[in-house]
C-alpha cells in the first residue's frame, strides 16, 4: 500500500480567511510578548491588531467569494454558505472586540491572550461552516469550544466567571464525547466520514441503518448542546450570566451561527436521505425549545439570563427551518443569524454599559427609567428589543419570515404556526424591558452611570445601523445568502 500526498489538492488559497485570522492571532501574541511593565504600549495595540485581522479576513473572504471549491480531498468546502457564515462570524468577532476594548483590562491584565483566543475561536467557528467531513467538523468544534471555555473563565478572580467556565467546560466536554461517539457510529454505519460519501451510501440504501440512526441521534445531541436546544440547554443561562459580557455577546452569536451552520450542512448534505428519521424529532425539539426558552425568559430578573433564555428560544426558531428540511432553510438560517448578530450583540452591549463596576450582570430594575436618564441608550435598547421580537421593519422580522417560510416549504405548517405563536409570547419579555425603560421611574438614582466608551459606541452604532438598515433594505443580504449551500448531487 503506497500513499502519496497530492499537493495539488491542498488548495490552501481557499482557507485564506481562516489562515488570515491565525496569522493575526500570532501577531497579537507576539505584540503581547513585547509589552513590559515599563512599556505597556504593545499590549494596548492588541485589540486594534485583532480588529485589523478581522477586517483583513473579511477582505480576503470577499476576494474568495463567488467560487465553489472543495479542498483537502473533500474535507472542507468553500461555497456561498461558508463565505456567508464567515461574514457572520467576522461581524460577531469585530463587534465583540469593540465591546472588549475597555472592558477586558478591568478584569484581566492578560489582554493579549484574550484577543488571540478570540481570533482562534473565530477560526474554529469559520471552519465549522466549511467542514465537509466529520473529522474536520469535530476538530473545528473543539478548536472554538476549547478557546471559549477559557474565555468564559477569563475573570479568574471572579467566582461567577470561573464557575461559568467550569460548568461550560464539563458539559461541553461531555457533549463532545457524545459528538465523537455519534461520528464514530455514522462512520460504522456508512464506512466513511465524508458528507458526500455518507449521502452516497445512504442514497444507495447500503448503510447499516441502526448504527446510522444511533449516530444521528448522538450527533443531534452534540449539536443540541452547542446551539442550546432544550433539553441540552441547562448550561446556557449560567454561562451567559457568569462569563464576561463581551464574551457572552460574542459567543451567543458566534457559537450559535457556527454550530447551526454545521448542523444544517450535516443534515442537508450528508443525511438528506434519512430525512424521514430526523425531521419529526427535530420539529419536536424545536417546539419544546421555543416553549421552554420563551416561558423561562418571562421569569428572569437578570437581563443576561433573560437574553440567554431568549437565545434558546431563537435556537428553536432556527431549528424550525431545519426541521422543514428544505434547502431554503439554510439560506434563511444564515440571513437570520446575520440579523441576530446585530441585534443580540447590540442588546448585550447595552447590558454591558448598564452593569455596575465589577459586576457581571445587570438586573431588570437597572433598566427602569432609562428612557429619562439615558435616552440614547434606551432608544438603542428599544430598537434591539423590537428587533429581537421580530417587529418590522427591523432586521429580525424578515429573518423570521424566511425561517417560517422554510418550515412551510418543508410541509411543516403546524410547526410554523407554533413558532409564530411563541413569537407572540416572546414579545412579552422584550416589551417588558421597553416598558421598564420608558414607563417606570428610576429605582436607584445613585446607580445612574452607564459605562460608555468610544469603541463601545462604535459597536453600538454598527449594531443599530445593521438592525435598521438590513430591516429596511433586506434584499441585498437575502440575495447574498440565497441558494448558498452546495448540496449533494446539486
Amino acid at each position, binding site marked *: 500500500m503506497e500513499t502519496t500526498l497530492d499537493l495539488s489538492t491542498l488548495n490552501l488559497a481557499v482557507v485564506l480567511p481562516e489562515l488570515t485570522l491565525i496569522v493575526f492571532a500570532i501577531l497579537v501574541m507576539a505584540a503581547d510578548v513585547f509589552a513590559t511593565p515599563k512599556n505597556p504600549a504593545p499590549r494596548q495595540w492588541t485589540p486594534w491588531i485583532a480588529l485589523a485581522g478581522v477586517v483583513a479576513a473579511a477582505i480576503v473572504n470577499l476576494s474568495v467569494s463567488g467560487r465553489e471549491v472543495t479542498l483537502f480531498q473533500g474535507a472542507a468546502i468553500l461555497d456561498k454558505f461558508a463565505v456567508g457564515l464567515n461574514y457572520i462570524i467576522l461581524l460577531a468577532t469585530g463587534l465583540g472586540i469593540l465591546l472588549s476594548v475597555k472592558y477586558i483590562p478591568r478584569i484581566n491584565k492578560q489582554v493579549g491572550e484574550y484577543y488571540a483566543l478570540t481570533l482562534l475561536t473565530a477560526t474554529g467557528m469559520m471552519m465549522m461552516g466549511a467542514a465537509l467531513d466529520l473529522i474536520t467538523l469535530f476538530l473545528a468544534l473543539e478548536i472554538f469550544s476549547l478557546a471559549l471555555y477559557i474565555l468564559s473563565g477569563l475573570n479568574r478572580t471572579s467566582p461567577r466567571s470561573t464557575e461559568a467556565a467550569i460548568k461550560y467546560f464539563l458539559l461541553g466536554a461531555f457533549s463532545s464525547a457524545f459528538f465523537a461517539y455519534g461520528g464514530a457510529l455514522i462512520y460504522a454505519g456508512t464506512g466513511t466520514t465524508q458528507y458526500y460519501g455518507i449521502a452516497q451510501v445512504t442514497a444507495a440504501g447500503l448503510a447499516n441503518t441502526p448504527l446510522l440512526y444511533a449516530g444521528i441521534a448522538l450527533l443531534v445531541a452534540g449539536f443540541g448542546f452547542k446551539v442550546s436546544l432544550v433539553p441540552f440547554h441547562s448550561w446556557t443561562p449560567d454561562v451567559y450570566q457568569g462569563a464576561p459580557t463581551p464574551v457572552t455577546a460574542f459567543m451567543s452569536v458566534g457559537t450559535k451561527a457556527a454550530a447551526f451552520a454545521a448542523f444544517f450542512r450535516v443534515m442537508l448534505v450528508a443525511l438528506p436521505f434519512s430525512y424521514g428519521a430526523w425531521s419529526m424529532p427535530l420539529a419536536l425539539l424545536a417546539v419544546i425549545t421555543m416553549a421552554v426558552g420563551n416561558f423561562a425568559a418571562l421569569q428572569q430578573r437578570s437581563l443576561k439570563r433573560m437574553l440567554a433564555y431568549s437565545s434558546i428560544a431563537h435556537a428553536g426558531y432556527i431549528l424550525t427551518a431545519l426541521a422543514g428540511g428544505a434547502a431554503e432553510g439554510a439560506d434563511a438560517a444564515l440571513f437570520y443569524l446575520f440579523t441576530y448578530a446585530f441585534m443580540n450583540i447590540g442588546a448585550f452591549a447595552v447590558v454591558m454599559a448598564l452593569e455596575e463596576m465589577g459586576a457581571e450582570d445587570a438586573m431588570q430594575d437597572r433598566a427602569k427609567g432609562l*428612557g429619562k436618564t439615558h435616552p440614547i441608550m434606551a432608544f438603542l435598547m428599544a430598537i434591539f428589543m*423590537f428587533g429581537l421580537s421580530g*417587529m*418590522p*421593519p427591523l432586521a429580525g*422580522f*424578515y429573518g423570521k*419570515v424566511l425561517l*417560517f*417560510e422554510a418550515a*412551510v*416549504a418543508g410541509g411543516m*405548517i403546524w410547526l*410554523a*404556526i407554533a413558532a*409564530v*405563536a411563541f*413569537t*407572540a409570547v416572546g*414579545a*412579552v419579555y422584550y*416589551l*417588558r424591558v421597553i*416598558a421598564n425603560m*420608558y*414607563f*417606570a421611574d428610576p429605582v436607584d438614582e445613585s446607580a445612574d452611570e452607564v459605562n460608555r466608551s468610544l469603541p463601545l459606541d462604535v459597536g453600538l452604532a454598527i449594531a443599530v445601523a445593521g438592525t435598521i438598515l438590513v430591516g429596511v*433594505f*433586506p*434584499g441585498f443580504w*437575502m*440575495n447574498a445568502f*440565497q441558494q448558498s449551500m452546495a448540496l449533494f448531487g446539486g
Partner: protein
Amino acid sequence: MEFLNSWVLPIILFWPAVAALLIFITNDERMIKWGSILASLLPLGLSIYLLAAYDQGVGGMQFVVDIPWIEPLNASFALGADGLSVPLIFLTTLLSTLSIYYSAGTIRYRVKEYFLMFQLLELSMLGVFMALDYVLFYVFWEISLVPMYLLIGIWGGKNRGYASIKFFIYTLVGSVAMLLAILGTYYATGTFNILDAAAAKPFMNLPADQALLLSSLAFWGFFLGFAFKVPSFPFHTWLPDAHTEAPTAGSVILAGVLLKLGAYGFLRIILPTFPSTSAYWSMWIVALGAIAIVYGAFVCIAQTDLKRLIAYSSVSHMGYVMLGIGAAASAMGRNPDGTSMLNDPAVFDSAAMAINGALLQMFMHGIITGALFLLVGVIYERAHTRALDKFGGLGTLTPYYYGFFLVAGFASLGLPGLAGFWAEFFTFRGAFALVPLWAAFGVIGIVMTAVYILWRIMQSLFFGEYDSTKLDHWTTVTGEHADGPTDMVAFEKLTLWPLIIGMFVLGFFPMLVLNYFNSFSVGMLESIRTLF
C-alpha cells in the same frame, strides 16, 4: 399634474417621516409643536387633492406606484388608492392634524418624543391604507403598534403599563396569525401583490374539500389579524383598557383610524381574495357583529367612567361595520344551481348597500367618536376625573361644551340629519335583506345606543342642578385653579369645529364620501359576480 399624480402617495406617506426626522433634530418645544402642526397640513392638503383627483368614472386603483423592493422575497414597494382608501386616507390625515393640534395644547412633558411618535403613527396608518403588497402592508400594520404602545405607555393614565402591553400583545397575536395567512396565500398564488393575489383566488383550483380547508385556514388567519384590530367581539377586551389609559389624542387616533385598519383589511383582503370562503363563514362575521352591537351597547349602560363608556360604544359601533361586511359576504356564495348569488340584482344591491353602510360607518365613526374622545379630554383636563357621578348640571355652566357634546352624541345615536344616520341606514337596509334575523337582533343595539347616550351621558353630565360639593378641584385647561367648570377655550373649539361641521355636512350630503365607497363596493362585487 402628471408628476404629482404619480408621486402623490409616496409624498403623503413619507412626509411624516421627514417631519419626524426634523422633530428629532429640534430641541425647542414650541418649534416642535408648531412644526408638527404645520407639517401635518401637507398630507392633509394632498389627501384633499386625492379626493378631488380620484377619477370615479374610471374607478379602480389610481396613483399607483410599484417599485421592486425586496427582490428575493418578490416583495415590491407598491402603493395605490381606490374608492375604499381615498376617503380613509383623508380621514387619517384630518384626524392626525386635529390630534396634533389638540396635543400641542395639552401635552406638557416629553414633548419631543410625543410628536415624533405621532408622526410615525400617521406614517404607519397611511401606509396600511396605501400598501398594495402584503409584505409592505404587514410592515406598516406592525409599525402602527409601536408608537401607539408608547403613546399609551408613556403619556397614559395610572394603569398605563398594563393597558399598553395588553394592547400590544393582543394585536400582535392577531397579526402573527395574519402573517401565516399571508405566507399561505403567497404559496398558493406566487405573488405578494394584494390585487394579483385577489385576482388569482388562491386555493380555488384545488379539489373542493381541500380548497375549503386551506382557504378557511387562510381566512381565519386573516380574520384573527383583523378582528383583533376592529375589535370584533370577543376579541375586544383590550380596547376599553387601552382607550381609558391612552392620552386624549391617542384615543382619537385609536378609535378614529386604528380600528378602521381592521375593517379595511376585511374589505381589501378577505372579501376579494376569499369570496366563497367568506360566504361559507359569513354567518360568523354577521353574528359576531350583531352580538358586538348589542353587547357593546348594554355594557355602555353599566359604565361609570365616561371614557370607558365611549370606548365600549366603539365596540358597539364597529359591530355595525362587521354586520355590514358579514351580510355582504353572505351574498358572495353560489346558488344551488352553481350560479353566483349576486346575479340577482336585488341581492347585488343589498350587498352593495351593506358594504357601503359598513364603509360609511367606518368613516362616520371616525369623525364622531374622534369628537367624543376629544370632548372627554376637554372635561378631563378640567375635572381630572371621568367618573360620571361626579358631574351634573354642566349644561348651563358650559353651554358651548354642551352644544358640541349634544351634536356629537346625537350623531352617534344616528339622528337623521347627522352623519351617523346614513351609516346605520345603509347597513341595516343591506343587512335586513340578506340576514334578516341577525339584523333584527342588531336593532336592539340601536335602541340601547339612544339609552346610553341620552340617559348615561347627557343626563349625568348636563342635566339637573350643578352641585359644587361633588367635585371641588376644578382647574382650567392650562392647569390653574378654577372655582368650577369652565367652558371650552379657543384651541379646543378649533379642534372640534371641523368635526362638528363634518357631521352636519355628511348628514345632509352623504354622497360626498358615499360615491367613492360605492365605486369600490360595486367594482368588487361585480368582479366576484362574474367569477362563477
